[in-house]
């Protein structure tokens, strides 16, 4: 399962925000959670409450407001600040931002830029973490889940705490991306981790 990266857009120009949102919507794991024009009086508070991963601000003609904003946001280092400009930024402002994108960039350059931001934040949706193979222990637990055992019963049977079983089950669901017991059962049967007669007998 991939975590969704939340993004906030700031800028006065509707078309630029709309364009950015459309562009970002092509990344299935990125979601634009809010848009501001930068002049809202309570903007800092609202942004902080939304806990975004990334803030992209269109700086042109809006520098003072955004500088204030930057000062506030820099108190929360978990927010990744990215500026969008038409290339006429003052150096002292430019230096405040981790990444500055230029509006004239082509699609490939912008895509790479976004991917770099996400990778740096450890948020890359297409991460290399593809080893979703279940461990032996997880396989054992999956078998028992398929047989209809409760977490408590599994814990008793394998001499584990319920808490450990719950953690294993969360990991199984995460690795396989299957949430329901029926779904897990189908998976277990398809992969011959358990046979229909075993399930039958356990009831």
């Amino acid at each position, binding site marked *: 399962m991939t975590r969704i990266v939340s993004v906030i857009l700031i800028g006065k120009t509707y078309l630029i925000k709309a364009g950015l949102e459309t562009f970002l919507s092509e990344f299935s794991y990125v979601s634009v959670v809010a848009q501001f024009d930068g002049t809202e009086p309570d903007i800092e508070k609202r942004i902080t409450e939304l806990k975004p991963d990334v803030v992209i601000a269109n700086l042109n003609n809006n520098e003072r407001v955004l500088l204030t904003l930057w000062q506030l946001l820099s108190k929360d280092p978990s927010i990744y600040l990215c500026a969008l400009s038409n290339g006429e930024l003052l150096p002292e402002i430019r230096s405040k931002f981790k990444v500055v994108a230029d509006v004239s960039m082509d699609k490939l350059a912008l895509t790479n830029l976004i991917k770099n931001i996400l990778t740096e934040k450890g948020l890359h949706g297409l991460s290399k973490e593809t080893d979703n193979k279940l461990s032996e222990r997880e396989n054992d637990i999956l078998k028992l889940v398929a047989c209809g055992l409760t977490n408590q019963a599994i814990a008793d049977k394998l001499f584990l705490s319920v808490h450990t079983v719950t953690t294993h089950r969360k990991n199984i669901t995460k690795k*396989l*991306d*299957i*949430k*329901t017991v*029926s*779904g897990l059962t*189908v*998976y277990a*049967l*398809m*992969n011959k981790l358990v046979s229909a007669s075993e399930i039958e007998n356990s009831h």
Partner: protein
Amino acid sequence: MLIDKDMKLAEIIHHDYTLLPVINRFNMHLGVGDKTIAEMCYEKKVNNDFFLSIINTFHDNQYFPAQHLKQFPAAMLVKYLKQTHLYYLNRKLPDIETQLENMEQNCAINGETLTLLLNFFKEYSKELTHHIEREEKVVYPYVLALEKAVETGKVTNDFNKKLQNYTITNYKLEHENVEEKLFDLKNIIIKYLPETLNDAFCHVVLRDLFDLERDLNNHSRIENLILLPKVEEMEHLYKQINS
């Protein structure tokens, strides 16, 4: 694109054919000629505004005129929701089941896997049907009775009794997440199906599951974000009349 009343229905269908089942729910059928939405709605005695709100909600995921939709009578919402139920029960669920059965017959090698999928789907189908029946038998009649009581301003002992036993808050609790099973089914087909199965068959089933999911999402969006808050408001009003 925002669809408006002066557009021709034929153009809308050319533009987004996935709207067909939704259009159908308003008793509009193919052979639409050059009729505009306004003309068609007039002919079918459908509220123009309501039709447009629903169709646009479906057409554009970002578009959800919650405040606007809340202004329509609950009876109108319920009528529409019932029509979508019919579509699930009479069309979508049997269709998908038939496709899975066909697959089971046509792909002899992996019969076992397909039986598993078919049974899983049947289980899901049963759950969804149960959920729908509960809404039709308990929730909707309650909503309609409540709206009538609020409209007429009449407080009846009969309804008071009902209200004591049941409020829409119960429904919130009952509104269980049947969607998880549908997601699992899709994901098992996408990620874990043996390669030997007939791709074409699987694509058809998968596309139908995606369609059903999208339709259900829109359905629950209207229930949770429009009908529920509306009913809560009406309950509040009714209690005011009552006191």
